[in-house]
């Protein structure tokens, strides 16, 4: 390997690392607010890519059916629980939030199937169709067991991932997709070719991380979310509703997952089940950050991306093995640095 190759690999690695940064930050964000390790998060990324590809091919994306199914289930559950509580007055609002709102973008995608929308609209529609999935899953799957331990929520998450990937195959089919490049130029930096897509990916990662920073530091909702993450009881005493905070966290996380899906779609061929590996690699980054620190998570995810780039060059079949094996030294380091709050009496 000479310096030239190393530079190319590094740039490749930085680009995929930037994707992992977006997803890993989403993981940490959702975990901090909800205590849920949202394993199906990578699936959301993959579904975004598949949705975008369908829209490009003037087809109705499978996401429409998926959102419809989830929205109906969530609405039924919400209405039933309101009816049991005797809070019938809240039913219209529930219908609006759980049924109408998620179905609007899906309906647009359904209605416009057959026409090719201009790129910005297409991207926007893709994000809008994807956004409701995670909050709806939260209502259906997690809200009934919101008080469960982190470990139980994790088991549920893993099971949910398998349900989602099965649904993915059902709604999207087994074919892999790759979308058109969003930008199409290559520049040379110090003699090394850098694709426009790589620059776009890195730029987006920086941009969205910065947006998130602004949200958390300069808006009341951002601060309320942060407050819920660091002290749930304190937040409730301020009148911040934990379930509302959870929904916002899932929505924000979904934005990040959707963006990463749009960015990765032109670079990698994405299948209905590609999300799991993408998600898990981002996870390695999140674990490096101890599931708490955003900056360390970003650095960790970048490191995972670069490592993967070099590993792919050295031994393509074993690149995943190498990436996951890095967890062992990371955990060893973490076991000496993280102070672990004891989880008491889980029985």
């Amino acid at each position, binding site marked *: 390997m000479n310096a030239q190759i190393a530079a190319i690999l590094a740039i490749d690695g930085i680009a995929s690392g930037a994707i992992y940064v977006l997803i890993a930050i989403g993981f940490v964000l959702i975990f901090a607010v909800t205590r849920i*390790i949202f394993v199906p998060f990578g699936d959301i990324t993959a579904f975004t890519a598949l949705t975008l590809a369908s829209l490009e091919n003037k087809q109705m994306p499978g996401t429409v059916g998926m959102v419809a199914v989830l929205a109906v289930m969530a609405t039924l559950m919400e209405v039933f629980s309101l009816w049991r509580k005797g809070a019938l007055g809240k039913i219209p609002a529930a219908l609006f939030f759980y049924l109408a709102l998620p179905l609007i973008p899906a309906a647009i995608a359904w209605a416009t199937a057959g026409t090719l929308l201009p790129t910005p609209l297409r991207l926007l529609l893709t994000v809008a169709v994807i956004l409701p999935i995670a909050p709806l899953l939260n209502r259906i*799957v997690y809200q*009934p*067991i919101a008080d469960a331990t*982190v*470990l*139980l929520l*994790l*088991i*549920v998450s*893993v*099971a*949910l*991932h*398998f*349900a989602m*990937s*099965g*649904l993915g*195959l*059902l709604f999207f089919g087994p074919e892999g997709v790759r979308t058109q490049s969003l930008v199409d130029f290559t520049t040379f930096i110090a003699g090394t070719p850098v694709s426009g897509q790589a620059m776009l990916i890195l730029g987006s990662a920086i941009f969205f991380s910065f947006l998130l920073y602004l949200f958390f530091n300069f808006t009341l909702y951002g601060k309320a979310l942060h407050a819920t993450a660091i002290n749930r009881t304190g937040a409730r005493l301020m009148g911040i509703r934990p379930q509302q905070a959870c929904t916002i966290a899932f929505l924000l996380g979904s934005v990040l997952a959707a963006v990463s899906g749009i960015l990765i779609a032109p670079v990698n061929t994405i299948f209905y089940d590609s999300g799991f*590996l993408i998600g*898990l690699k981002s*996870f*390695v980054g999140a*674990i490096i950050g101890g599931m708490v620190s955003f900056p360390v998570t970003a650095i960790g995810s970048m490191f995972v991306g670069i490592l993967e780039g070099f590993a792919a060059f050295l031994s393509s*079949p*074993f690149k*995943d*093995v190498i990436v*996951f*094996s890095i*967890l*062992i030294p990371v*955990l*060893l380091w*973490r*076991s000496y640095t*993280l102070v*672990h709050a*004891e*989880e*008491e*009496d*889980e*029985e």
Partner: protein
Amino acid sequence: MSRQITIAIGAVALLALLGAPLYLAPFSITLLNYIGVYSLVALGLVLLTGNAGMVSFGQASFMGVAAYATAWTSSVMGFSPWLGLILALVATGLIAAILGAVTLRLGGHFLSLSTIAWGLAIYFSFGNIPGLGAFDGLSSLPPISIGGIALVDSGQIFYMIWGTLLLTMLAIHNLLDSRVGRALRALRGGNTLVESLGVNALQIRLVTFVIAALCAALSGWLYAHMGRFVSPTPFDVTMSIIFLMMAMIGGSGYLLGAVLGAAIIILLKNGIQDVLPKIAPGSSGQLEVVVFASLFILFLQRARNGIVPFIAQWIPEPRRERPPQAELLPRQPQPAKETALMQVDAVTRRFGGLIAVNDVSFDVRAGEILALIGPNGAGKTTMFNVITGALRPSAGRITFAGKDITGANAAKIAAAGIARTFQHVKLRPKMTLIDNVLLGTYGRTKAGFIRSALRLDRAEEARARHEAMRQLERVGLGDRPYELAGNLPLGNQRVLEIARALAADPVLLVLDEPAAGLRRQEKLALAELLRTLRAEGLTILLVEHDMDFVMGLVDRIVVMEFGCKLCEGEPAKVRADARVQEAYLGGVA
């Protein structure tokens, strides 16, 4: 249902199982074989998840390591499957030990997350090593042969599989009902209690993790020689979650639950495979995963306890005899009365800028009851934690029976002869009274994992049981030793904690707010018990809020306020002290 009927049903079930190859079709026997093989993995998870509280998504990959080890030995190298078994156990055990040593310190969700990652890493390795047939796998494995008979037929290996399963169940059953088994079961409520009893929690976790992996290894070995073909697919993460599903649906924590869970899942899978193609002809494969995952989620939301506890309510409690008389466990010598047993010398503890304990000194004399009192926030609990090894002092020295124990960890303090109770009662509510007290004898007994699994620990166990029973009787809880600790009212739970502490044969008993939350009668009974213990020569240090409780009971009092020692002396003198009244009633002067 009476006890005889239960036994009869059990015997009939066992006979029906053993005779199965005689009357069942080969396909049903194959199903039973799968149930047996998968039950072994689920059994490991029952131990790991249900009893020790650790969740692993990597069991299928452990099974795979063993399957590949034996496939390589027997198919590629041409050796006997029995050599393959040894290699399978060694390889799996080693990998589990290394992975466990790295991640078990972190515990909780980190452990589980990392099992997904290395589960995948191991899975990808199978698929990418050409010597192991890559994604095509290895075929034409030889059958296992016993005494010249090759177990080719599904009816033949059936006995091998179910024999192994029943023996493993027996060994794990023995293990759970032993000294280490109790420590292992106590782990899931957290480390604080078990470490205060002198248990090395990390070591117990590690060995448990390895045992669960070895169960998966046995299963992998049988699996490889049952189908006589291995490929990576059956060992991926999907399979791991199905194993977890088996263990939890059966009722994680119950050995029989592993078998029941495996049977239900396999029969369900079989049923779904028959039904789904009729409903959705083109996509039954995908739907199967969705159906399984959704059912599992529904189960976790609605009925986490699983099936066995549900069935168990109709099965009569086995009648357990009171432990018989046995030789007493060895005891420590008690120090001579009135000598200084513990000296706390100028101890200070800071948290950041906050000084919680400031230059506090006092002695505890052998044979006395000393109370450490003071209003809320005075630093008593911090002082208590420093004495019991939960916190290190920032400055100062603590000596106990002539030895310096400053900053020693909880296990060392326990070994030195100090036993403690907790302000928020730390019992294992789902363990019986006698098991809770037996936890206290951990430091006085020796049997390890292997001795326990093979039942070579019974003599020592009998002595420990006798001792636990003696302590239960001593505190007045001797009438129902097999009641669950969680069913006791708070007052008795506190007393049970004292019995557990006494079972450790301490020189000094340290009690953290023993009277908090007790009713008047309970307080009187507790005071009476402590007086008796003092009369028997035990030294007691108690931290208390309740002046009423302390006054008539203790020999001396140390009063703390704002982290400092306010005064020290006999109850009457302390009570009359104006500064103490001020501290307790407060003042705005």
